[in-house]
């Protein structure tokens, strides 16, 4: 019975993926992509990857989906012109050949994987007690592969700088996004008052249980960023001008704390990002706490886009 459901789910995802690619309108494709991300979440739940499922729902479906919808909205004016351009047969053949070649290369890679797959899972589970973190995903991300997580945070910061660099010169340092004018007594303003308390508690909870259960700073930060965006969309608060010193400091605080702890590790424990014996859990907590506001701000500001207006509200 479960097999039948799993096969149906896989077929549904494949069908939706094809639909998303062949959809004529960018907006429809973005909606298809969000549904695809939510279905993929179900797959991760079926595979018992609850951490990955949470991340997929929050970032793969939600955040990326909103980014794509924003991109589709901006491309709408150019869409009919783009559709009128018919690529010639040569372009189509080359595109088809390249796609087939990429698919074939991926298939060969997957089929050529050694059986059993090389794994460090046994060593991780043998040494996980040292970190005092019960959720193996968090232990891997912040103890055994802390370098990856540090680079991830820095990559996000670069992505935000990339978004900001699209700002016109006159708006540089100003407020990102458009000024929202929603009805102060409307439905959206009501939800923007009711939902954030629940969302903030949920985000903090998901962040805190990340040590022992599925969850963590990324998923929690996404929820907090969503609440922040909701309040701004309802016009209850305005986006901060990006020239503010406190904003810049918060944006780099997480990675700076991470690097600082890494340097201390290099001096006391013998390697960059190594934790002194017995201090693993508290140091992981410090890193998580430092990264949380940084990630929330980066994710929210990335969705707001480049600065488009001056400092005046």
């Amino acid at each position, binding site marked *: 019975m479960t097999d039948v459901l799993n096969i149906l789910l896989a077929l549904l995802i494949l069908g939706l993926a094809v639909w998303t690619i062949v959809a004529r309108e960018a907006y429809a494709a973005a909606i298809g992509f969000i549904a695809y991300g939510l279905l993929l979440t179900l797959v991760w739940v079926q595979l018992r990857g609850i951490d990955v499922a949470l991340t997929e729902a929050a970032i793969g479906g939600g955040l990326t989906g909103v980014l794509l919808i924003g991109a589709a909205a901006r491309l709408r004016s150019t869409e009919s012109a783009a559709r009128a351009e018919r690529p010639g047969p040569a372009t189509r053949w080359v595109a088809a050949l390249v796609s087939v070649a990429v698919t074939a290369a991926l298939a060969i890679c997957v089929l050529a994987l050694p059986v059993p797959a090389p794994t460090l899972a046994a060593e991780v589970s043998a040494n996980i007690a040292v970190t005092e973190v019960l959720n193996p995903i968090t232990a891997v991300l912040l103890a055994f592969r802390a370098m990856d997580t540090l680079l991830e945070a820095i990559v996000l910061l670069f992505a935000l700088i990339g978004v900001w660099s699209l700002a016109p010169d006159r708006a540089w340092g100003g407020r990102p996004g458009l000024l929202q004018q929603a009805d102060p007594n409307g*439905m959206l303003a009501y939800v923007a008052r*009711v939902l954030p308390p629940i969302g903030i508690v949920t985000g903090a909870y998901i962040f805190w249980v990340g040590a022992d259960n599925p969850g963590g700073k990324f998923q929690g930060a996404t929820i907090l960023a969503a609440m922040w965006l909701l309040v701004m969309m309802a016009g209850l608060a305005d986006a901060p001008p990006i020239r503010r010193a406190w904003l810049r400091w918060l944006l780099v605080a997480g990675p700076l704390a991470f690097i600082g702890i890494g340097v201390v590790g290099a001096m006391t424990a013998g390697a960059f990002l190594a934790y002194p014996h017995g201090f693993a859990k508290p140091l992981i907590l410090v890193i998580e706490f430092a990264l949380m506001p940084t990630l929330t701000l980066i994710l929210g500001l990335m969705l707001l886009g480049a600065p488009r207006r001056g400092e005046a509200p």
Partner: protein
Amino acid sequence: MSVVLAWWTVLAVVAGAVFFLAGTVGLLRFPDSLTRLHALTKADNLGLGLVVLGLLPMVDSVSAGLKLICIWLLVLLSGATAGQLIARTVRRDGSPS
């Protein structure tokens, strides 16, 4: 007792699934945005409500049951809001048909 509860779960979840099916059929078949919204919100509100009510006797702990109810209430809130916002856009800009 447990047999009664099991039957309650089956009945309520099936009834919820019927609402989801009807909502989906309505979404595909109804002529304009407002009637389609009407079909969709029934699936969210009543369908999910019945599924949650049906699953309540099956949970292991009180907190799990409360989480289920919270999920239903949050979906009610977001569904009602999204419905209102879409309906207002339709009224202002006209239905995209």
